[in-house]
């Protein structure tokens, strides 16, 4: 009797182990398949592109070629550009984006929380904010270049303005959607208005604010590059503009690639920051679902 039970238990445990191993193996194989398919797609597209330019089906003058892009980038990294080393151009664009991001996020959070907390101010300013928000803000770049010249400040300002609105609206909404019970409870426990903001309102709005930071980061890079397009002495935007003027398709694509990599790197850092700041949240299943996309 007892041996029979023990056997049954043993076989049950064995079954579970077999199933777990099989599941792990399936998962591993699937990951491998996805990865190799991803590489396959890249090879296929780039190969077709290169082949097209070699056979003359694609005009390399307009569309460049993968090898041409690599050569162009190599030349830039080794010999530098007309306005200094390529690393310097990357650094300047990065600096403009990050400064713009910092100023934009800072002012957006500050004003968002302030207007969210003081309904009177929100009512007074909301039409003006809507008007400014409705403007295509990129055109502000022209004014900023006129005001602040070709240097760094005009790009920082443009990036900051683009970032500001994204963060502001999220911070505002976040403050407005704070759980009223939490606020009431804090007040009864003896919190002053400032303490309520510090301990309840701001952390609660933080989830909204952080959600906006991904988009804001993209906007800060756009702001810096567009600013450089409109008038600059340095930066990746200027590199692209120059390449465009000399009909250097490889140059445009090459600079684009670098910008893309920069954005990806910044995005990865942002994800780490987000995980740190939102560590208190329960693991949601939606995150797992979107991880593959």
């Amino acid at each position, binding site marked *: 009797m007892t041996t029979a039970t023990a056997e049954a238990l043993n076989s049950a445990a064995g079954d579970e182990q077999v199933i777990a191993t099989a599941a792990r193996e399936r998962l591993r194989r699937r990951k491998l398949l996805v990865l190799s398919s991803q590489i396959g797609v890249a090879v296929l597209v780039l190969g077709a592109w290169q082949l097209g330019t070699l056979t003359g089906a694609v005009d390399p003058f307009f569309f460049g070629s993968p090898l041409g892009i690599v050569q162009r980038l190599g030349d830039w990294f080794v010999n530098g550009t007309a306005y200094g080393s390529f690393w310097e151009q990357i650094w300047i664009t990065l600096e403009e984006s990050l400064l713009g991001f910092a100023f934009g996020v800072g002012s957006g959070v500050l004003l968002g929380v302030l207007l969210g907390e003081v309904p009177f101010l929100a009512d007074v300013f909301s039409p003006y904010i809507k008007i400014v928000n409705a403007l295509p803000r990129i055109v502000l770049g022209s004014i900023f270049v006129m005001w602040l010249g070709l240097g760094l400040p005009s790009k920082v300002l443009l990036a900051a303005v683009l970032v500001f609105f994204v963060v502001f609206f999220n911070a505002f909404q976040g403050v407005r959607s704070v*759980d009223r*019970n*939490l606020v*009431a*409870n*804090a*007040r*009864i*426990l*003896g*919190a*002053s208005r400032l*303490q309520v903001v510090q*301990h*309840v309102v701001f*952390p*609660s709005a*933080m989830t909204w604010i952080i959600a906006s930071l991904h988009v804001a980061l993209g906007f800060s890079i756009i702001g810096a590059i567009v600013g450089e397009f409109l008038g600059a002495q340095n930066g990746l935007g200027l590199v692209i503009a120059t390449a465009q003027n000399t009909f250097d398709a490889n140059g445009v694509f090459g600079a684009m690639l670098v910008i893309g990599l920069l954005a990806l790197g910044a995005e990865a850092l942002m994800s780490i920051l987000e995980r740190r700041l939102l560590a*208190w*949240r*329960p693991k949601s299943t939606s995150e797992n679902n979107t991880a593959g996309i």
Partner: protein
Amino acid sequence: MTISNTTGMGGVEMTNVTKRFVTPTGAAMTAIRDVNLTVEPGQFCAIVGPTGCGKSTTLTLAAGLERPSAGTVEVSGKPVDGITKGASFVFQSDALLPWKPVEANVALGPMFRGMPRREALTQARNWLKVVGLSGFENHYPHQLSGGMRKRVSLAAALINEPTMLLMDEPFSALDVQTRAIMSNELLTLWEKSRPSVMFVTHDLEEAIALADKVVVITAGPGTVKAVFDVDLPRPRGAVQEIRFTPRFLELYQQIWESLKEEVESAYQRQVTTNLNRGAAA
């Protein structure tokens, strides 16, 4: 008991209190009208009534979160202006900050009152021990079960050593067994410091098992319909068992008789409004 005057600490005195709200559409809505209610210091008062009768409104008035439209609310002999001193609130949803660990949540009260962080956390850990949650100090609220979160809420409310405890259907989101356990726990904790309690609930059994006094509120706009003294001896012991004593059943029948009409009329009204709404749509 030695306590009999309503001017002592934690006593509540509501006189002809009416509260109206203005809805977002601009219509005025009367939540409660002409409420006269006395809770003596150290008394456990349960408030029962049908859905939407303004039970919760009486609590927010006592807490000082809202002002009455007419009448006076006095707590500890002083008219309420601003947040009531010495009050703690336990909400139906546990009002815990999800981004703070349990001990930091409990420490909020003392910290808001100016106690240094380290000292407040030590006190919080002591209170967590009292409610039986040692070892969970660094967990986040979402990592705890509903009953455990309720314990944290209780600790967070009691750490301020309130003279008046306001509870708005605190256990209604819990399952029946957990609710019974929490009720016992509440009674034990209450016996230690004896704040006055205003306990809003739907559940008449819960009300009788816990309270010294049960106040029945009419269907909205609510007003006090009847007040019943519960003369079951204290300490009460397990709430699950006191339900079977003859005196409990007698009281239950008496109060239910009074409450039944209100529940029925509130339900009738709900049905009619829904019908009208359906017809309008």
